[in-house]
Every structure is written in structure tokens, then in C-alpha cells.
């Protein structure tokens, strides 16, 4: 029996790119894009000097010293952040879309993002100021919300109950966040608001030191399950008959996605649409085979967030746009277009 949320085919007759070719192209494109992004920003640094500056500067050259500091302390951590966060969010989105067999699925749907936000906000309002406290609080929040949504939503077969539970959990989280906002003092409230718009400005090497391996490990776990995700696309009965224990599989995918997205939300705030849009951008030209979709989505997400952050950094000089605005402005219309297409097929 097909899922209640049976979607119209998300395919286009124009598909014509081999997924292996896309993977190759993305691998090739990433380094130059990262370097170009590293070379541009509010402080003008000539592209040709970038490599040299990283090696070192002659003493007394204040201009070069400034450039080097900007690169090492501000830009490079930020770019690395964009790559890691973008990859993580996109991969989680692809996994959720396979799990729900619904191309509109997103980690936010089952409570991961808002649960994480609630955890962080509760910590902030209750007095925490150190990220070392706020980040784990966010992770606890996202896991708790996801676990609750899963327990409520998996009592019955199918994905519709799970999605409904996710909607309910999100509503509860939003209300709780509202309560904490009410209790927040002025300073805390301003921090909450900024943090909710999403920003990569907090990028630091010491954050990356634990975030990168974390994303790498969880990413690997998700990548390895590409067969299970393909089987889920066939249908739950088919997946079961091919030897995938559904409840175990669902639990596994949900936990990994929650563990992956929770810390990301904690350090960057909620950045929307990456998990929703990137898998689509990959699926449309190359198809839904997760063997290639997952690595392509990983790289695609890294590049998309890199570009979004680049735009955020240079479009309103010398100020910066919150990155959530860039992804929203790009992702929102895309989502509308997607819905319009589905309605007509």
C-alpha cells in the first residue's frame, strides 16, 4: 500500500546528467570555489596573494599581516564552517526525504531543528552564556524532540503519523520557545533573535575541531545506508521483503539525523532550506539512486552554503546579511516552484 502522502513523480524528462559525472564535477568545482570565496570579502585581498599569505608574512608588512589575520581568523574558519554545515544539513535532508518517501521532507519536519533551538534558548534564558553549555543543550533538545516525535508517530504503520507527530512537536517547541522569549531579559532576547536568523559568523577553529569529525562520522554512517534508502523508495513492503527491518532502520536514520543536525543548529542557529533544496537540485538532473545522490548532496550542500555565505558577505558591504535570509530568498521561491510543478503533474 502506498504511503498516504504519495507524491507526484518528481522527475523531469530533461534528466540527462550521469550522477558520476556530477560527482566528478562537484569535486572539481569545490576547491576553486572555496579559494575564490576565501579571496573575497569586505577586506580586499588580491587572489594571487592568498596562497603566499598563508605561508607567512615578512615582518613589518602591516598590510599583509592584516590580510593574513583576516584570512586565518575570519575567512578560512568561516568557509570551512560553510562547507561542513552545508554538507551536514543537505545530507540529513536527503536521508529524511528517503525515510518519508517525500521530497518535501526536511530535518525541521520531525522536530530536529526546533528542538535544538528550544534546547539552546532554554539554556540561554536560564543563564548559560558559554557555547560549551549551549551546544549540548541544543543537542539534547533535538534528540528529545525527535525521539518523542518518533515514539508518538511510529505507533501506527506508515509515515503520515510520524509527520503529524513532528508537526505537533514543532508546535509545542515553538510555544515553549515563545515562553522563554517572554521570560528573557532584554539582552538575552536580542541574542536569541540574532541566533535564530542563522549565521556563520561564529566560526572558530576550536569549534571546527570537534564539529568536522562529528559531521564526518555521522555522514559516513548515513552514506553507508544508501541501499536501505533506495529500498525505502520502492515502498515499505518492498523494503521489508528485501531484508531491511523497518522500525530499526527508521530509528537509526532518525537518530543519526538528529545527532547530525542538533549541534549544527546549536552553533549556527537555524539555517533553512538547505536540507530541502539541495537534494532536489541533485535529483532533478541525475535521479534518485542514493548511491550517488548522497555523496552528490553532501558536496552540493557544501557548495551551496559556501555560495550563500559568500553572497551574504559581499552583497551589503560593509555589513553582512544573515545567511538565513539568503537561503530563504533562494529556497522559498524554489519551494513554491516545486509545489507548482507537483500540482500540475
Amino acid at each position, binding site marked *: 500500500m502506498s504511503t498516504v502522502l504519495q507524491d507526484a513523480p518528481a522527475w523531469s524528462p530533461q534528466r540527462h546528467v550521469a550522477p558520476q559525472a556530477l560527482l566528478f564535477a562537484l569535486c572539481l568545482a569545490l576547491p576553486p570555489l572555496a579559494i575564490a570565496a576565501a579571496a573575497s570579502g569586505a577586506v580586499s585581498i588580491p587572489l594571487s596573494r592568498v596562497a603566499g599569505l598563508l605561508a607567512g608574512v615578512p615582518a613589518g608588512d602591516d598590510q599583509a599581516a592584516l590580510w593574513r589575520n*583576516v584570512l586565518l581568523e575570519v575567512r578560512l574558519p568561516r568557509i570551512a564552517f560553510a562547507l561542513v554545515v552545508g554538507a551536514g544539513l543537505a545530507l540529513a535532508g536527503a536521508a529524511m526525504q528517503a525515510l518519508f518517501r517525500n521530497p518535501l521532507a526536511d530535518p525541521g519536519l520531525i522536530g530536529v531543528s526546533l528542538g535544538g533551538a528550544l534546547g539552546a534558548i532554554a539554556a540561554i534564558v536560564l543563564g548559560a552564556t558559554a557555547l560549551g553549555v549551549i551546544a549540548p543543550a541544543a543537542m539534547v533538545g533535538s534528540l528529545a524532540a525527535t525521539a518523542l516525535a518518533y515514539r508518538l508517530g511510529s505507533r501506527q504503520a506508515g509515515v503520515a503519523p510520524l509527520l503529524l507527530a513532528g508537526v505537533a512537536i514543532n508546535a509545542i517547541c515553538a510555544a515553549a520557545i515563545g515562553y522563554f522569549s*517572554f521570560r528573557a531579559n532584554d539582552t538575552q532576547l536580542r541574542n536569541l533573535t540574532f541566533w535564530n536568523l542563522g549565521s556563520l*559568523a561564529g566560526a572558530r577553529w576550536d569549534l571546527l575541531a570537534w564539529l568536522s569529525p562529528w559531521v564526518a562520522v555521522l555522514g559516513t554512517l548515513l552514506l553507508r545506508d544508501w541501499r536501505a534508502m533506495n529500498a525505502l523508495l520502492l515502498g515499505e513492503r518492498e523494503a521489508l521483503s528485501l531484508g531491511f527491518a523497518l522500525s530499526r532502520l527508521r530509528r537509526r536514520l532518525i537518530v543519526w539525523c538528529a545527532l547530525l543536525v542538533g549541534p549544527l543548529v546549536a552553533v549556527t542557529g537555524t539555517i533553512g532550506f538547505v536540507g530541502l533544496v539541495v537534494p532536489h537540485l541533485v535529483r532533478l538532473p541525475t535521479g534518485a539512486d542514493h548511491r550517488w545522490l548522497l555523496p552528490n548532496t553532501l558536496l552540493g550542500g557544501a557548495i551551496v552554503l559556501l555560495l550563500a555565505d559568500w553572497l551574504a558577505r559581499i552583497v551589503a558591504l560593509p555589513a553582512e546579511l544573515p545567511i538565513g535570509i539568503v537561503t530563504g530568498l533562494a529556497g522559498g521561491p524554489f519551494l513554491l516552484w516545486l509545489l507548482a510543478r507537483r500540482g500540475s503533474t
Partner: protein
Amino acid sequence: MTCAERSRSRRLPRLLGAALLLAAAAPALAQRVVTLGGAITEIVYALGAGDQLVGTDASSQYPAATAALPKVGYYRDFSIEGVASLRPELVLASDQAGPPNALAQLRQLVPRVVVLPAAPTLEALLQRIDGVAAALGRPVEGTELAARIQDEVKRVARAPAGRRVLFVSSRGGRLEAAGSETAADHMLRLAGASNVMAGERGYKPISGESAAALRPDVIVTTTMSVAARGGLDAFVAQPGIAVTPAGRAKRIVVMDDLLLLGFGPRLPEALRQLQAGITAAP
């Protein structure tokens, strides 16, 4: 020694002296400054150093000259690289500038970052003036400004006792009232008014019922809040406002946000306006 040689030897020490004086004054004159925080920007202008500013933040709206300056974002979320790209020698920042860690990163990129207290009190304002003056190398102007402000504040008449005042602002479509520990509350206290909302801490959403129960005689608000509602009439017509004695008698005091809440050098003027508005006959 010839006559010419004698006059030359007298000229040299004078030249040297002048050069030394210039050298001492040079840092203050040549410094490029970026400010993060509206009140701090105002102080810089009040000290006569406005032409040293090469950039400021979005909350710095006064004086009019700030409109021409590049903006690096709102001070609570400013762009680090944006500030660095302006090549300032000195950054004067409110201690509320953020995001967290941004000031630490900024210190790596800019020769000098001076952090000033942001508290909305008279004492903190005096500290801000002192701090800015010291950083800019204008201690004399700083002392003068601080003394003038203290003097003027003392001379502002107090509002008539017994006037019940409420401060509201429209925040994100929601009407909120200022309790204790807010900038608005401090202003009202300085003006000698009694804040009917003082029992609460911070900003709290207010409904028609609570507003009516508080029975304020005067309502103070900001120009941004009125504009957000679409004009004074629309503002007064709000359920929370209309039922109060203040709303019925149209005793609404509207002041510019930065002027009223900024706790900058225009504090005496703000207090005068506030007091006049509260005291005004219905």
C-alpha cells in the same frame, strides 16, 4: 657666531618644540575611528571628533552626518570583516556588541578596540564619555561634556508627583510595556515620574485589560512604534491604549528612539522633552 647663525640656532629649538607638539597631537588627529553603538557615536560627535569617523553601525542615526557613513551592520551583529575593511585605528564598541567572540576576533584585526559599558544609567553615560574621551585623546573635552551634562540633568524640573506613566513600544507587532531595569524605566525615574509597570522586570507584552488596570495618565512611546502602527491616530486606537486615561485624553508623548533610550550626550534634552510631555496639561 654671525647674526644669521644666531637666528638659525634659535629657530631650531622652536621648530623642534612645534614638531614635538604636533607629534603628540598627531595620534588624536589622524586616528580613523569606527563606532559600534548609537550613544557612543553621539559622544564622538559631541567631543568634536566626528570627522575621524570612517564607519559606524546601523543604530547610529544621530547626528545627520552619520547618514553618509558606511554601516557595518547592527552593533549586536556587526560584520567583523566589514569593520576591518575600513582600516580603523580605533574601534569604540558597546559591551553589547556581538555576536559573542566578535570583539575578540576584531582585536586581531584592528590596532585598538575600546569597550564601553552599555548600561542605561547616568553613571554609565559618564563612564562612556570618559572612556571615549580618553581613547580619542581629548580628556579636556570629555571632562567638560560630562560636567555640562550632569549640571543640566540636575536642573531639569521634576514631573509633578502622582503622574502615572507607562512606556510602551511596538515590538514585532506586539505591544510591550517597560518594567524595571529597562532604559525607559531609568528615564522615567530620572524625570521623576512614577512607572506604573515598575513591578515587572524587563519588557512585557501588555493587553487591553492590563493597560486599563494600570490606569496610566500619560503614555510615552517612540516614533518607530507609532510609525509601525501607521500613525498616531492608529496608535491611540489600539485596544491596549484606547481604554487608558492617557488614551482617552490623548496624552501620548512621542519621542525619537535613540534620543529617549540611547542614554547618549543628549540625555538632558531628552529629559526636558520627556518632562515637558508628562507635565503638559491635558
